């Protein structure tokens, strides 16, 4: 027969006798009794090298590989069974302790027998706890390695974490306070529960904690892997889209209610503007401007420190001739004329402006004449009287426009 045929025949043999094989595995330690009912099964299994006769004994032994396969595929179920078995055993322990205490108070009852019952249950509990933790440990370490789908692995890990919390409830019922209540003042129970059972529970609890920690790590890693997988898929999807459709530009114009991630509010830069049209803030604005100017000046000085250190040169031997503005020269000429003996009786500033051919505007000329007059007033006033001809432009009559300034000689009376 070929490879495939052999495999099919073996699987078929197991399939045909699943129920009987399951009992053989878990109720009979793999031993198949040589009875008429099992003849077909024995011959089929033997043919497929799945069972062999036990030397010197009647009966057959199921191959270890078959037991391994059954163990592997029923691990979770058996774990659950053992979990509920454990809960039942604790109840049994409680009632056997009660019976033992009761036996101690009676004269004709067998105390040793009651105690041996308690011992037996304690041993059963220790086995059950050991099996449960061991099974859980192997569930955590092996079972998931064959599952490739991340979602399924996350689901299984979560389920395992739930189971671990259930086991913890069982462990809680085997806590010190509970044991002390059971022990009371009985030395034999103390030795049995507080020493033997307690140390075993502690050891198993440590294993359970380690498995639980590993489970949480696994879950965190799986969730991260899932997140990474999702992001990687997104990156690949868009990269593929841009390659396939080079002009692709996403558009959300027609989305009625976009999600939050697409309606991030635009940046607001908080600031204020002063109302320069109103005089109400004049003083405040003046202060702000003053402060700003001071800061600006300080900054400029900082930026250009050389401005602070002006080099002073010793240049006393040189003579620098100051150039006098031609406008000032013309004004001085006008006042020289006024003070000369040949001056006329009346002299107009506008006339002088034209006569001296002043190279400045008439307004500048008039203003300079007035300021010069103010400065020289004491010398000029005794001899000359100033007359200013002005006009008003309606409708505003508060402003007087100066047309001309005329100097008129004062009549000096000689006593």
């Amino acid at each position, binding site marked *: 027969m070929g490879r495939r045929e052999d495999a099919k025949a073996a699987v078929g043999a197991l399939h045909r006798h699943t129920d009987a094989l399951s009992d053989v595995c878990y109720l009979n330690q793999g031993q198949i009794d040589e009875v008429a009912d099992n003849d077909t099964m024995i011959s089929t299994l033997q043919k497929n090298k799945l069972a062999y006769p036990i030397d010197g004994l009647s009966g057959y032994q199921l191959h270890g590989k078959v037991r391994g396969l059954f163990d592997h595929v029923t691990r979770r179920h058996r774990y659950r069974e053992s979990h509920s078995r454990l809960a039942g055993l604790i109840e049994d322990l409680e009632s056997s302790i009660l019976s033992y205490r009761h036996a101690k108070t009676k004269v004709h009852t067998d105390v040793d027998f009651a105690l041996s019952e308690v011992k037996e249950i304690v041993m059963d509990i220790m086995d059950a706890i050991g099996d449960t933790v061991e099974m859980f440990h192997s569930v955590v370490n092996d079972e998931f390695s064959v599952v490739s789908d991340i979602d399924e692995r996350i689901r299984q890990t979560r389920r395992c974490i739930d189971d671990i919390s259930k086991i913890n409830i069982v462990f809680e019922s085997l806590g010190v306070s509970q044991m002390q209540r059971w022990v009371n003042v009985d030395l034999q129970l103390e030795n049995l529960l507080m020493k033997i059972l307690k140390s075993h529970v502690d050891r198993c609890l440590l294993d359970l904690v380690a498995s639980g920690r590993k489970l949480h790590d696994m879950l965190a890693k799986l969730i991260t892997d899932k*997140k*990474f997988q999702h*992001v*990687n*898929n*997104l*990156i*690949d*999807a*868009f*990269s*593929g*889209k*841009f390659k396939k459709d080079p002009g692709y*530009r*996403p558009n*959300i*114009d027609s*989305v009625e*209610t*976009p*999600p*939050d*991630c*697409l*309606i*991030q*509010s*635009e*940046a*607001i*830069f*908080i600031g204020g503007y002063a109302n320069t049209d109103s005089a109400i803030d004049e003083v405040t604005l003046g202060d702000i401007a003053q402060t700003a100017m001071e800061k600006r000046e300080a900054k400029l000085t900082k930026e250009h420190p050389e401005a602070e250190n002006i080099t002073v040169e010793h240049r006393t031997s040189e003579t620098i001739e100051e150039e006098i503005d031609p406008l000032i020269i013309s004004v001085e000429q006008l006042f020289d004329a006024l003070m000369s003996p040949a001056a006329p009786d009346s002299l107009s500033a506008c006339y002088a402006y034209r006569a001296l051919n002043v190279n400045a505007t008439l307004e500048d000329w008039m203003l300079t004449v007035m300021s010069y007059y103010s400065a020289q007033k004491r010398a000029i006033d005794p001899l000359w009287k100033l007359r200013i001809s002005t006009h008003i432009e309606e409708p505003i009559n508060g402003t007087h426009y100066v047309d001309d300034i005329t100097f008129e000689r004062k009549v000096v009376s000689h006593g």
Partner: protein
Amino acid sequence: MSYSPIFEEVIMQLLAQSVVCEISSPECFRFVEQEHNREQIDKHLHAIGRHLAQTSDKLGYFCAYNVLDTSKKRSRTQKQFESFVIDLEGIIDWLRLVRSIDQDSRPLVAGAQVKESELLSAIEESNSLKQQLESISQKLKTGGKSTEARAKLTAVLKYLVEQNYLKPMGGTGTQFMATAKWSLLYDQLDFIRSYDAIEIASETEQQRELL
């Protein structure tokens, strides 16, 4: 409510369009993480037509409009989206480049470290990565005239820092941490992908492509 400098800082950051996260501003992020503070911030933003939103991976907070009830808000949102789209292809290419350099092919997510030296040594060893960087630099308009991979990489990193995708760490300026702006980007991509019905390549297709 009395004056709180950290509250002020958070509000200012949110209104300046920042994504508040553990990397970009740890103190602010921790402040927002507290439910009471979150409620206060949200209440404050609601009064100006906005609300506090969170990225789907819960790593970043940002400010979003309550509703796009005016044409002004709608046009601003569209304008923002358009500027996001302009750089999208370059950003996607950058993500692929960083992922291909990572030993475990992990994508760039908030909190991930980016070391310029590691990227550069991988890029300088591979012509294909050099070309990828060149293309990214062109798409993001960051490369300038330089032909050197180092200059291009530095310019791209600088651009990503300016856009708040990366935050420089340490004093050398060559190590960065990814901010939760990437989380916001992935949320945006997720929505666009489902809206535009962009197909995600199945694992088999990806394997075939790799082969």
